[in-house]
């Protein structure tokens, strides 16, 4: 036992902080989600499944969960569709150009989401840049309504999250041998065949890993849907926020948060299982 003492002492402080500040609050939130709430008595310790039942049976919540995961799937597909080719193109650039483009793509990750979302609000607002330009050119007679639409949320989230996809695919591409592609071409395969049969299967693990990050982050996104979706287009994260800070129904908010967390974990785990199973040969 004594030889194990140094690592336990070294990691001890961090473990203690994590137990006090992460494990305990998470367990307490889980407990809270089984309590009751009413406007007159506040939170009472009548434990039961009623908060979960409310979420599962109420069509109001069905719509919110459906919207959240529909947006997540859309954003993930779009990110894969534009992020993977971009990573491939980056990989073929000269070093100087590549580092400049990478800086432009990854740099925004360091800027707060709120600033990037504001950019979209300024672009697509009723008197935003796009509407102003289209009105000036005479393409449209009255401003297009783009704010407070699901499409606006999807486009802005693709913008916020696509760097993760590029990064993930690019990391995979770096491990590849460019000669394999040349071999395929010199043996007479067309561009398309080479892409589809040689390149794509090799970068698939990168695309899948990137998709996972994008999907999980979209499902739990708060700032972008809240600003571009407004009051009407609620997603799971903004609903939990409203239950907590506006309605003050903490137990229900805790139940929504717990469902979101469990859904995220289930998606990530089953996806990992699937990827490990399918690409066992690639990872070994």
């Amino acid at each position: 036992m004594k030889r194990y003492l140094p690592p336990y002492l070294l990691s001890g402080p961090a473990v203690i902080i994590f137990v006090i500040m992460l494990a305990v609050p998470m367990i307490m939130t889980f407990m809270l989600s089984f309590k009751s709430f009413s406007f007159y008595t506040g939170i009472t310790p009548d434990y039961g499944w009623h908060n979960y039942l409310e979420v599962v049976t109420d069509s109001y919540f069905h719509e919110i969960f459906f919207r959240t995961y529909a947006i997540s799937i859309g954003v993930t597909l779009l990110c894969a569709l534009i992020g993977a080719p971009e990573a491939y193109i980056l990989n073929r650039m000269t070093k100087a150009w590549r580092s400049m483009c990478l800086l432009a793509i990854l740099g925004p990750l360091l800027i707060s989401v709120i600033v990037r979302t504001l950019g979209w609000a300024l672009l697509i607002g009723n008197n935003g840049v796009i509407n102003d330009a289209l009105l000036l050119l005479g393409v449209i007679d009255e401003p297009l309504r783009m704010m407070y639409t699901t499409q606006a949320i999807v486009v802005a989230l693709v913008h916020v999250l696509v760097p993760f996809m590029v990064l993930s695919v690019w990391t995979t591409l770096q491990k590849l041998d460019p000669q394999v592609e040349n071999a395929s071409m010199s043996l007479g395969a067309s561009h398309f065949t080479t892409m589809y049969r040689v390149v794509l299967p090799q970068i698939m693990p990168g695309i899948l890993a990137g998709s996972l990050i994008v999907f999980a982050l979209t499902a739990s996104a708060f700032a972008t849907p809240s600003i571009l979706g407004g009051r009407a287009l609620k997603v799971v994260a903004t609903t939990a926020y409203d239950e907590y800070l506006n309605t003050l129904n903490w137990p229900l908010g805790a139940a929504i948060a717990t469902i979101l967390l469990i859904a995220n974990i289930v998606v990530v785990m089953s996806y990992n299982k699937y990827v490990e199973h399918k690409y066992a040969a690639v990872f070994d």
Partner: protein
Amino acid sequence: MRRYDKNGPIALTFNALFLIFILAPLFVVCWVSFTPEGFLSMPTTEFSLRWFVAILDHPEFISAFLFSVYLAFGSATVAVALAVPAALATARYRFPGRGMIMAFFMSPLMIPHVVLGVAFLSYLSSLGWAGTYIGLVACHVILIMPYALRLVLASVTGMDKAAEQAARSLGASRWTTFRRVTIPLIMPGVTGGWVLAFITSFDELTMTLFIASPSSTTLPVRMYQHITENVDPLIASVSAVIIFITMILMFVLDRIFGLDKLLVGK
């Protein structure tokens, strides 16, 4: 021989469009912030700095900025102070529970920020720490620990142990070896981890929204509250200042660490 590893015109056009897509929103924010008008508009002939001057008349943004820096500084420092020994333990030793401890430290990456916010709000208020500096630091430490740990761990794993063994065999004590050999060797990872932790803490909105009080409001929270009420040129100029500061920081980081290495953590 023909070369197949060059980008064709279609690929280069795609790349240009992609970069426009990424940069346009940020560019628009900066452009709008130079408007001379009292409302949101794209200045074409006249440009003015009036909305940058206007920030000075809104002390709530300046105090929020200073509080964000103060909070990020404290949280990043505590996170790195915890991450260095934790990285040494997990990289140097094999012990029961090692994998579990590692997963525990990385778990905040998998928890949606809104869930962390929900959990911390009720926890901090039951402790009586709601809205206090120490409460916010404690929550931010959990959130940024994975980022700090990942970079510190990469440098500890990549470090040459021979230098330490040489120091020990030449008679240096454990403490001296740690201070004079180990720490300087892992310094790049520690600095990188600190900077990434600082930025993550500074940018965080969702979780902080739950636990901030009017006297402990961070800049992103202040901006969110402003945007939900109205979008005006003032918020554009505040954002432009953030973009400008981040760009300078980004070039420095890219020079020192390489941005892709900092973000991938390899």
